[in-house]
């Protein structure tokens, strides 16, 4: 698949501080890319470089076919940026702000009005469109910021913490909206809410101290970081079954260890592909009622914490 974003050896230094250290990255067109990292890891710096708001010390990048460092206005016609740090013009009304953005993208007359209505509806802001932005709540402002970023039907959409101020319903709506963009728009999303990234992103990059520590699909990450452990949960009302089952499992040559975590039995094995069918056979012959049986997959949070063990600030420029 063609790449919508390519970074080759991208370096950004602020004096003695290296904010970005030889970043190599490819984001396939149409994918939802989650960009993760602790505070100060270089996420915002990367977005600023890719949107042409800052220039790299060395290396280069291509976004939607154009080098952002070239200052080419065509790039800004093809991309959009929603930055949680940005204040919007509080003296404008919601609709006015979108009309202003639409005009900058060349929309005029009926086209402008219909596009504004479309994004207002998509982001659930129709009723608030006539109010001044200064009176918006944090969540409404975040929705409006997303709405303005959608105005130009971008090829590449950069989102910096797009759901951080939203309530659960708002988060759900925005994540659904992002789901709808899959395949049409390349979304480059930085977020601290790993659960959301796990839910919508099909590819994830994790950056720490300016260096990319991993870049893979969710499936690849889960396969790479999966431990050979199975979880078994029995239906309630079988008081002795857990102990009996643990004893039987412990005798299997493929099982390296067994343990109990509340109602869940954890079975560590040496070879997951051979042990899976063996455990299933034991369960079937032991006559217990099983509620759940699964190979434990690491969550994105597990992967993140293994790759970025320290959450201490380390002075790199965000």
């Amino acid at each position, binding site marked *: 698949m063609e790449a919508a974003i390519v970074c080759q050896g991208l370096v950004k230094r602020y004096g003695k501080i290296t904010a970005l250290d030889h970043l190599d990255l490819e984001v396939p067109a149409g994918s939802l890319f989650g960009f993760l990292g602790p505070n100060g890891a270089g996420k915002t710096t990367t977005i*600023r470089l890719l*949107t*042409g*708001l*800052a*220039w790299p010390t060395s290396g280069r990048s291509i976004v939607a076919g154009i080098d952002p460092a070239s*200052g080419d*206005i*065509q790039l*800004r*016609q093809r*991309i*959009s*940026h929603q*930055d949680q*740090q*940005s*204040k*919007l*013009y509080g*003296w404008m009304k919601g609709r006015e702000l979108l009309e*202003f*953005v639409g*005009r*900058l*993208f*060349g929309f005029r007359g009926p086209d402008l009005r219909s596009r504004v209505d479309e994004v207002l509806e998509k982001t659930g802001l129709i009723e608030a469109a006539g109010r001044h932005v200064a009176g918006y709540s944090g969540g409404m402002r975040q929705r409006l910021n997303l709405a303005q970023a959608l105005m130009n039907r971008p090829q590449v959409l950069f989102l910096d913490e797009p759901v951080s101020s939203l309530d659960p319903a708002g988060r759900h709506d925005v994540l659904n909206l992002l789901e709808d963009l899959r395949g049409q728009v390349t979304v480059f999303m930085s977020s601290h809410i790993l659960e959301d990234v796990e839910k919508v992103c099909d590819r994830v990059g994790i950056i720490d101290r300016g260096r990319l520590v991993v870049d893979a699909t969710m499936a690849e990450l889960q396969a790479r970081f999966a431990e050979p452990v199975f979880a078994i949960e029995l239906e309630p009302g079988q008081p002795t079954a857990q102990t009996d089952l643990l004893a039987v499992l412990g005798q299997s040559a493929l099982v390296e260890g067994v343990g109990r975590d509340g109602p869940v039995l954890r079975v560590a094995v040496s070879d997951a592909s051979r042990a899976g069918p063996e455990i299933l056979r034991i369960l079937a012959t032991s006559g217990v009622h099983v509620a759940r049986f699964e190979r434990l997959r690491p969550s994105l949070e597990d992967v993140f914490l293994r790759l970025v063990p320290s959450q201490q600030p380390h002075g790199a420029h965000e």
Partner: protein
Amino acid sequence: MKGYAVLLRKEVIEQWRTRRLPVVAVIFLLFGLASPVLAKYTPDIVKLVASSIDIHVPTPTVKDAVAQLIKNLSQVGVLTAILLAMGSVAGEKESGTAAFVLVKPVSRFAFLAAKFSGLAVTIAVAVLICGLAAYLYTDLLFAPLSVLGFGTACFVILLGLLEIAAVTFLGSTLVRSSIPAAGIGIVALVVAGVVAALPNVGRFTPLGLNELASNLALQQMATGWILPLIVNAGFVVVALATSWLVFRRQEI
């Protein structure tokens, strides 16, 4: 200049909605009205206050009305120009709205040009209102002034104010917050004040233009002003060009 018209429209509406334009217009209107009134009644006020002392105060003339107007504008006008210009670019960089706009398909030149144009519109409207008020009250209390002469004088005053605004605007482009930008404008004003007091070179400063404005308003001989006018206009151009050179590769 891609995006200039849209950005200028936004600037003008912003100047109105954030009350900058109406407030500045009212302040300038008050000074326009007050200048001839003060010139006319200052001798009476002095006599009233110091009735026991024998003070000879000459009868005020139209010249005093013009002098009062120019004095007021050179004080309040320049401070207003600094206050308006100090946050124009720095404020947008500080709040993040500059980044919000500059990731859209607009050129940085258009962004700066629209910002300064919006600023210039506010100052020009304020000077126009002030000039009209001062002209009418001078006519009422003293004698009519030449429309052309007084209009040209207002234009010269506007040039001086735009010069101070342009230097502060350059400061606002260089730094990331409004206060240091205002500092740059005030330093420029102090330097201009010192240089204005020097013989021969004083005319080349915005404050030195006051003498020309006075001569024009009173239809007195004004010679040797072409070069100072060009130099003063040149300062505006140089300040704006430097702003652009700085801003076009500035990280936002």
